[in-house]
């Protein structure tokens, strides 16, 4: 049945776009290669005729040896199912691709990121500026021929460490100022930063419409980057009309470390501890996503017990993340620390479990390709049992009694930051943000990974799409996660926790793979490309916190300044993942 559907889909696409759309026939690859000039029509057909209404991931790959740049798109149906992958190939010297923002507004930030890091120009993008690096940065760092200062070697492990047996610290080689790479003929003393901030402010100023009755002036205010409500270093440039928000532009990248370049330099296994540092509040989910992506390429499957351990860990992560998000969200509302400390208390107990199992509370580094690093000890199993069957349900009920009907929470939350369902889909919002807008889309159900198809749970959904619903949905999801853990604890079999021998060098067959999990923040995807060597050729993270911010401006328009803080809190971002 499903095969037939795919067949007709392919027939339809190939017959409607003869010549310009071809199946991707490279070994290990999937999907279609679309000619750049047919891209807009192709995307329109996908969205309107085939029901692929959700563009999840947009990224680029630099195929340096072939002299090509490739843009890779992953589109989904919000009713569930596998992705439709399509790619556009353009010459490396002048990579120009039509922008899909007009069809899928959720491509906005992702296209900007691809421009910023890979130098792919998106024609027709309304606001094609750098997003993670600063305006004026020289070069596009994810390109394969771009090297950072103190560049040592193309790939780890570095020969200098072994067998040569030496190392250096970057700062020892840094006579002041020499750690930056200027283009030829560039004089920093004469350069004036004329574009970066001015461009943002100018862009915001365009919406200025003076009111007829009152001669008021709009002002631009920076919220952040140093502000307790931004959960890190994150700036929002807000145009205000009195107290009302006219427009908002998020500015990010303060925590940017080019995670993906580091990932491409690492061996496959080395990336595992680095994924912990993306969304550092839910490391187990990050491990899960990356392990899935690489396991798809390797063609290994973890043993039963490991699958159950993975689910238990991923759901514990979701619980602690959501509880913490609720606590911090209440902080944003002005409830100074009492709710968040109640939340932290429960989180602490879950982190104790992680510490006992993985060795670290947050930087767990627990998953391996084909299993997990360690088995769960008996006493820890008992603790998980106690938490799942007794303590957590009780504590969630208490939190519920404490907050859900509080007049302050409701007054600050109801009707604030509304994101309607169709906009949530268009902006590629994911996770609780999408589901609070009435779209019951959960990767665990839409395209089950691991063993999630065995568990009985409900996809939480709320329909108002406001801040209050985003709070409620996290409560709902915690309850569902507890249900899953209870089932997993009952079913978990004895047995090995690793397929094959543990190894540190992996022969990954050439090809591409996209592994996605329902992280606590939303769909967390890892797009990896292997060329058969010991390191990934491309390693891309579809970061839910980052893409959820695309809808932030939409949510805040028309509200008051104080609401921004609450709305941002309700999205639940982690800057480690936003800035990567």
């Amino acid at each position: 049945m499903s095969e037939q559907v795919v067949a007709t889909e392919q027939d339809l696409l190939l017959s409607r776009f003869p010549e310009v759309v071809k199946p991707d026939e490279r070994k290990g690859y999937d999907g279609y290669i679309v000619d750049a000039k047919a891209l807009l029509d192709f995307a329109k057909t996908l969205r309107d005729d085939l029901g692929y209404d959700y563009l999840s991931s947009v990224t680029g790959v630099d195929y340096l040896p072939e002299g090509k740049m490739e843009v890779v798109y992953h589109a989904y149906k919000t009713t569930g199912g596998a992705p439709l992958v399509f790619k556009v190939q353009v010459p490396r010297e002048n990579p120009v691709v039509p922008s899909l923002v007009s069809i899928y507004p959720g491509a906005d930030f992702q296209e900007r990121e691809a421009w910023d890091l890979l130098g792919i120009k998106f024609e027709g993008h309304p606001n094609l500026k750098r997003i993670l690096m600063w305006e004026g940065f020289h070069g596009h760092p994810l390109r394969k021929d771009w090297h950072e200062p103190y560049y040592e070697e193309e790939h780890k492990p570095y020969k200098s460490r072994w067998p040569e047996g030496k190392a250096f610290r970057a700062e020892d080689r840094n006579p002041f100022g020499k750690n930056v790479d200027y283009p030829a003929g560039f004089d920093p003393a004469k350069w004036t930063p004329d574009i970066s901030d001015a461009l943002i402010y100018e862009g915001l100023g365009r919406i200025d419409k003076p009111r007829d009755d009152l001669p008021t002036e709009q002002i631009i205010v920076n919220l952040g980057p140093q502000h307790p409500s931004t959960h890190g270093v994150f700036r929002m440039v807000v145009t205000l009309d009195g107290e009302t928000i006219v427009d908002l532009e998020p500015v990010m990248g303060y925590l940017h470390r080019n995670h993906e370049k580091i990932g491409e330099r690492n061996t496959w296994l080395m990336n595992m501890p680095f994924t912990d540092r993306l969304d550092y509040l839910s490391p187990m989910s990050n491990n899960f996503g990356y392990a899935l992506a690489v396991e798809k390429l390797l063609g290994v499957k973890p043993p039963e017990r490991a699958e159950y351990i993975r689910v238990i860990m991923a759901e514990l992560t979701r619980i602690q993340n959501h509880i913490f998000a609720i606590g911090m969200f209440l902080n944003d509302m002005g409830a100074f620390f009492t709710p968040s400390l109640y939340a932290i208390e429960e989180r602490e107990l879950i982190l104790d479990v992680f510490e006992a199992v993985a060795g670290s509370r947050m930087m767990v580094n627990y998953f391996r390709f084909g299993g997990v690093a360690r088995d769960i000890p008996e006493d820890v199993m008992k603790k998980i049992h106690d938490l799942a069957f007794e303590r957590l349900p009780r504590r969630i009920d208490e939190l519920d009694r404490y907050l859900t009907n509080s007049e302050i929470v409701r007054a600050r939350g109801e009707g604030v930051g509304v994101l309607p369902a169709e906009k949530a889909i268009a902006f590629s919002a994911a996770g609780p943000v999408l589901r609070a807008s009435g779209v019951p889309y959960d990767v665990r159900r839409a395209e089950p990974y691991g063993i999630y198809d065995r568990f009985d749970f409900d996809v939480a959904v709320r329909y108002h799409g406001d801040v209050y619903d985003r709070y409620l949905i996290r409560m709902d999801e915690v309850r569902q996660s507890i249900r899953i853990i209870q089932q997993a604890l009952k079913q978990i079999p004895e047995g090995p926790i690793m397929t094959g021998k543990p190894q540190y060098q992996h022969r990954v067959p050439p090809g591409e793979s996209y592994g996605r999990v329902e992280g606590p923040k939303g769909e967390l995807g890892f797009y990896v490309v292997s060329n058969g060597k010991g390191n990934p050729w491309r390693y891309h993270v579809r970061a839910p916190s980052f893409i959820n911010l695309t809808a932030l401006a939409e949510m805040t328009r028309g509200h008051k300044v104080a609401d921004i803080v609450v709305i941002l809190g309700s999205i639940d971002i982690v800057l480690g993942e936003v800035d990567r």
Partner: protein
Amino acid sequence: MDGTGILKGLAVTFKRMLDTYIDDFKRGKKRYYTEEGIRYRQSAEVKGIFTVQYPDEKLPVPEEFRFVPFLVYDEGPNGERKDRCTACGICSKVCPAQCIWIKRATNPKTGRPIPHSEEFYIDIDMCMNCGLCAEYCPFDSIKMDHDYELATYDRHRDNILNKERLLKPASYYAQIRPLNYAREEEAKRQAEEAKRKAAEARAKRMAARKKAAPPKKEDKS
């Protein structure tokens, strides 16, 4: 919106406050500054306040807890140190932060490398405590430590650990990770047993062949 929601919420906080006092009365003095009390405050049934007064009280760390690597040496009968490292370089190759660098020792007579490390450094400023080195070391030579109080005055001087500072006795390792230690020793014992058995079997086979061989000779002659 009559304020009952807020009042109910306040009742929750009030109950929490009472819980702490009730628990204090019930458990008395042993709730604080005792091992049992700390364990209770870490457990899933804890009620009331559960903070730990660091550094007067310290949380016990679980066995798998990992914080910067150290090198294990075995103590010989006369107190000499036999470090287990063979300078194979796997820890250095698997390290995501590339913070381990090793110089192989060479035989002073022939100048050929020998399975022993001459210098071994770990930059603990760069170390991300992932534990991969310990996980993949085939000789159980590098292990993750439990000591997390590492504040120093000068990171250039104090935070690049050399072999002398990295080496710790196997007894220390057995103390911080008893289960792992027991498991590894057991595996080693079994490997040795298997080796011994294989050697015995080979000796037997050789002996049998010797016995079987003479008649053959006779046949030929």
